[in-house]
């Protein structure tokens, strides 16, 4: 299927109005939260940005870079990849002691620009109806806009993932037209993919699956010389992805004395989520502090006593705390996690800032967020379950949306969920709504003017349908399995 031709129509004017509404919402959220002190992990992202700006300053004045400062503030405990911090670095380069107002204002500008860019890409690749959907979901969700002025990477990671998926749709069109995507195109896609990863390491399952699909496409869709060219293009993408990831992995690994690919938080998260927290430090951890900091402090103490890496100790601690985990307890915890993932999506409205009395704006925003969240949940369920047997382009879109949503929903299986993680999936849910609505519109059109015959019988198409069906069955199976085991 050819991409829709670009013409400015009536729908585009509606789109402009809706996007304007999103911008207005961000402005209102800025007013709501502009002075809010950094909350939780925001502090780490800001510190890393401060440290990165200092490193650039040192480079600019040809002085030595303070490696210890980078290790402490950028790598830290190895929990967070520095995507958000890199985005914030220019601000701290100009305003080293930037106030929270300027930080939140700057973050709002960046996320608004990214949202508008993502919406423009939806418009360009999937057409105006899909873009309208995207402008509404997630564009008009108040709590989503709130995260636009926050320093967590969840929201931006979701928006970048949408761009990745749209690029993948475009490349699939190139393949469908019988051509091999150029190295440049695939490398561009890989660049966006690794950017998404830097913003949020929970992207990994979705991105790895996309990479595998790209590899499979190169092998199956082409023969002979074309296949070699396609495989080379995919390899170029892998090289781009890995070489951008590598500086972080190397710095974090060297700093923490163990192998770090994306994040060190998995053993801690597994133990805190599924294990016995009273056994995490081979017994209870220190009585003050949090379930995240105390285990790290303890692992550093053991590392100091033994000269080993704190990461090795954390692995052992996690395994010890999880020694009594059964399938039954695991399934129960995952279900609880999924519940936590979807309860109280507007939680952070109350938290940013946490010391302000709830006003009418906040209450309305909560209400609207909850409603949109119900819509979003329905969209996600439909996108995971529905299987398209229609044209190749639609099948590709549905498959990609399934992969992305499935990959993001993998998070509650390994990590305690909270009221923040949905913001990543929200952007993909918006894309899914666009895909579903254009699908529905096409069906309506066909009902009115039926076209003779079904889609041509094609092996490639059947594989796409089969993959969609497998993912849908997998989603149902996973949920049913959890309920049976729990």
């Amino acid at each position, binding site marked *: 299927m050819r991409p829709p031709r670009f013409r400015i129509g009536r729908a585009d004017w509606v789109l402009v109005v809706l996007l304007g509404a999103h911008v207005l919402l961000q402005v209102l959220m800025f007013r709501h939260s502009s002075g809010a002190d950094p909350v939780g992990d925001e*502090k780490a992202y800001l510190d890393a940005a401060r440290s990165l700006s200092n490193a650039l300053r040192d480079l600019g004045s040809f002085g030595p870079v303070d490696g210890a*400062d980078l290790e402490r503030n950028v790598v*830290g405990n190895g929990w967070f990849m520095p995507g958000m911090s890199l985005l914030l670095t220019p601000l701290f380069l100009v305003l*080293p002691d930037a106030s929270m107002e300027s930080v939140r204002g700057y973050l709002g500008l960046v996320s608004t620009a990214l949202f508008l860019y993502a919406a423009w890409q939806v418009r360009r690749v999937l057409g105006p109806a899909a873009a309208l959907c995207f402008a509404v979901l997630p564009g008009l969700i108040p709590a989503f806009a709130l995260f636009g002025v926050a320093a967590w990477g969840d929201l931006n990671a979701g928006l970048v993932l949408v761009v990745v998926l749209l690029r993948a749709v475009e490349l699939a069109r190139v393949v469908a037209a019988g051509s091999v995507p150029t190295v440049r195109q695939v490398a561009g896609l890989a660049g966006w993919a690794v950017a998404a990863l830097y913003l949020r390491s929970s992207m990994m399952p979705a991105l790895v699956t996309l990479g595998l699909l790209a590899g499979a496409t190169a092998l199956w869709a082409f023969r002979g010389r074309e296949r070699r060219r396609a495989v080379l293009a995919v390899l170029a993408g892998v090289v781009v992805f890995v070489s951008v990831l590598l500086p972080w992995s190397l710095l974090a690994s060297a700093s923490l004395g163990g192998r770090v690919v994306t994040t060190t938080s998995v053993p801690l998260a597994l133990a805190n989520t599924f294990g016995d927290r009273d056994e995490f430090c081979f017994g209870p951890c220190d009585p003050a502090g949090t379930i995240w900091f105390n285990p790290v402090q*303890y692992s550093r*103490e053991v590392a100091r006593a*033994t000269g080993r890496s704190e990461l090795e100790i954390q692995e052992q601690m996690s395994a010890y705390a999880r020694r009594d985990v059964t399938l039954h307890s695991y399934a129960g915890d995952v279900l609880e996690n999924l519940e936590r993932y979807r309860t109280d999506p507007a939680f952070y409205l109350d938290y940013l800032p946490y010391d302000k009395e709830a006003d009418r704006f906040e209450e309305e925003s909560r209400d609207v967020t909850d409603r949109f969240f119900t819509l979003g949940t329905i969209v996600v369920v439909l996108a995971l379950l529905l299987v398209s047997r229609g044209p190749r382009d639609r099948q590709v879109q549905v498959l990609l949306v399934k992969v992305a949503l499935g990959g993001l929903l993998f998070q509650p299986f390994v990590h305690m969920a909270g009221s923040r993680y949905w913001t990543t999936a929200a952007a993909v849910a918006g894309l899914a709504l666009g895909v579903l609505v254009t699908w529905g519109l096409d069906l309506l059109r066909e009902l009115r003017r039926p076209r003779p015959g079904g889609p041509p019988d094609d092996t490639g198409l059947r594989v796409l349908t089969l993959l969609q069906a497998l993912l849908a069955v997998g989603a149902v199976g996973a949920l049913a399995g959890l309920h049976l085991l729990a």
Partner: protein
Amino acid sequence: MRRPTLIRLALGGAALVLVVVSGAFGRAEPIGTYRPLLGPDALTNGCYPLADGIELDFPYQVRSDRDLPTGGGVRRRVVLQWDELSTADLEAALDRSLRAAGYEPAGPLAWAKGAHSVTATVSELPDRPEDSVVRGTVVLHLPSTPLSSTDPVCADPYSTKRFPPKPREFP
């Protein structure tokens, strides 16, 4: 040259200039709360050293340290975990450490030096995995030591392991 190339060059140049002049704006100061510096160990930070200059000659981490009123006055209770050594090697190392401070054995896992006495309770980690670095817990009962330093680190319970008692919880 094409227009996009020119724009890119201009943007790159502007970024470079910004980096070069950014030193003039001052330095950013990270707060560092997410990776606090690791304070020194509870028994070597100088705050509450072990009595009679006892130095433990094996890898350990202190888990808690407190003074407890007993019939014979205040006694100190230090709970620590030992690493890497077998139980027999740990007990030998413990004995070595106390003898080095002038203590004589006064029973199984008990030592005395004049009026001072030290006892230890050694327990292996339950369900200990074969390769576990942490091996078990030693509870030491020994003469109490007063605060011996004015270093601010002595106010940091993460270093001293003297955490204030938990506030009572009311239903």
